[in-house]
């Protein structure tokens, strides 16, 4: 049991190491940092400036901060979800290595988690830089004083675990489909962008969409991240929810995501073996 755990930790480390090599090894460190910062920064700026233009001077600073922080930290979601699906696709069809990793005794899931986490490392560098730029150039109310560090740490950890398990579900589905599966992570992350209050409060959504939004762990994660970064500011729709209860709900939903993810992933692997897809090559 201990040996198996150790082996899985190694697979995770190797996945992270390889993922980092793939992510960062194509250029020099300065250019790499510029690259990882520019993409989410551009997204956040587009959204924030759109808001500024539409609202002219009537918009509140609170809503600007809501959009800017939401769009910035959401980069982590996209990276982690896409990361694992892409790892399946890349290893299977471009590198031709998924079959060799699959027949090794260590856990394929641990390895894929590592690959996903490697993607996030770039974003973990990028998000603080983007927030700092937002504070300097757009009066974003984020400062050392406004950050609740313990809450940020807990929310970030829970978020990474929760998104990783969600990413594993997508990786499992990618295992069962052809090359287009690579866009699955992107598509799901895009869809969740609307439902989870990433750029606008869930209270503006129609009733049925709000119901879905309140069942999604990402909604609570984004709320927790905003509170941790913006001096405890409570987002619309969550005014009556205390910080402790918010984190508890997030932890519970993370556990549920894990409980759904693991059997689903095992089933997906079984189906992939049944259909002979672990070494499929669709001329990607």
């Amino acid at each position: 049991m201990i040996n198996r755990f150790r082996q899985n930790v190694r697979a995770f480390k190797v996945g992270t190491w390889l993922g980092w090599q793939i992510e960062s090894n194509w250029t020099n460190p300065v250019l790499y940092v510029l690259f990882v910062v520019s993409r989410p920064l551009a997204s956040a700026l587009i959204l924030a400036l759109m808001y500024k233009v539409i609202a002219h001077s009537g918009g509140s600073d609170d809503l600007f901060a809501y959009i800017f922080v939401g769009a910035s930290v959401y980069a982590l979601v996209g990276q982690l979800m896409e990361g694992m699906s892409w790892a399946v696709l890349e290893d299977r069809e471009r590198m031709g290595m998924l079959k060799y990793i699959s027949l090794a005794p260590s856990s394929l899931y641990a390895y894929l988690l590592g690959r996903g986490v490697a993607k996030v490392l770039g974003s973990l560098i990028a998000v603080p830089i983007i927030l700092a730029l937002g504070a300097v150039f757009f009066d974003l109310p984020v400062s050392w004083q406004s950050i609740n560090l313990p809450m940020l740490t807990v929310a970030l950890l829970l978020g990474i675990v929760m998104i990783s398990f969600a990413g594993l579900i997508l990786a499992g589905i990618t295992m069962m489909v052809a090359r287009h599966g690579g866009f699955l992570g992107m598509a799901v992350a895009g869809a969740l962008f609307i439902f989870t209050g990433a750029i606008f409060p869930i209270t503006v959504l129609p009733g049925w969409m709000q119901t879905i939004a309140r069942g999604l762990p990402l909604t609570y994660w984004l709320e927790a991240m905003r509170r941790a970064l913006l001096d405890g500011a409570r987002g619309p729709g969550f005014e009556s929810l205390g910080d402790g209860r918010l984190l508890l709900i997030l932890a519970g939903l993370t556990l549920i995501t894990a409980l759904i993810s693991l059997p689903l992933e095992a089933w997906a692997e079984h189906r992939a073996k049944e259909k002979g897809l672990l070494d499929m090559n669709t001329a990607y």
Partner: protein
Amino acid sequence: MRHMPEYAIEASNLRRIYKTKERELIALGGVDLTVRPGELFGLLGPNGAGKTTLIKILTTLLLPSSGTAKVWGFDVVQDSLQVRRHINMVSGGESSGYGLLTVRENLWMFSQFYGLDSKAARKRIDELLEIVGLADRAGTKVSHLSTGLRQKMNFCRGLLSDPEVLFLDEPTLGLDVEAARTLRLYTRRWVDEGQGKTVLLTTHYMQEADELCDRVAIINRGQILACDTPAALKRRLQDEVVFRLHTTPVNGTLSQELEALGGVRRLTMRQLDGQSELNLILADDNILGGVLGRISEHNASLISLEKRQPTLEDVFVALVGHGLEEAEERQ
């Protein structure tokens, strides 16, 4: 003392059917097979015969449609994790590997999947690279390696975990003669010195199977047609005689006429550059006169005539009715 099962590989009525919307393809049609620990076992057959499907099932990458298979005593479906602890695999003819990593990094990475201590792994990597003649390329990025060199690296990857059972799927495909020879020699040595180390090798190179394997199974269209030592397989043709003839170009009509001749057991014909090659298995020498007569009737001239010892190719022809190349074309 490590546990040694009675059979390293055991398959019983193993079937695999691929279903598509249009049709069902029987890749394995009820394979029964046993390989003992310490054997270098060859699976010989044309492309599409079911060799790779069998290897995929035995390495837990594919589920069988029915039947059972065990590797090192463990069921490939029920105990797949245990199976994976005892095996490794190398496939030929592919350019797999993480191109941005060096040879050493690629191998180190895989050593971690098998739980090897980093220091021990580095030592083993150096030893293996030395054996396959890749030591001077240890620091080279895989994307800069030729297919042959990548294949050598993959061979090292397969041996890195020192598995009980090593599956080699066409390992010398695309390799130059010298590289193929190196890998064959080391494979043989690894089995001979390994005390129970077992290799299942698939190949469509007859000579490779003949020279390397302790036993060979001939597989075609998902069925094992014969299984024995190469010598015993060839002895099946000892009552017959094998000739190879080269003539000026002849057409398929001659082939049909010759097959109809009494005493002609099997015949394969192929067109070479400006001549035809006929491989004949005859009941005895006396039949040859009739064969030459028919050739003459077709206004063809005999260029060369060779009476030779039966090869595994002849065994394949005798079992299947046509040569390996023709079998591949048909499939």
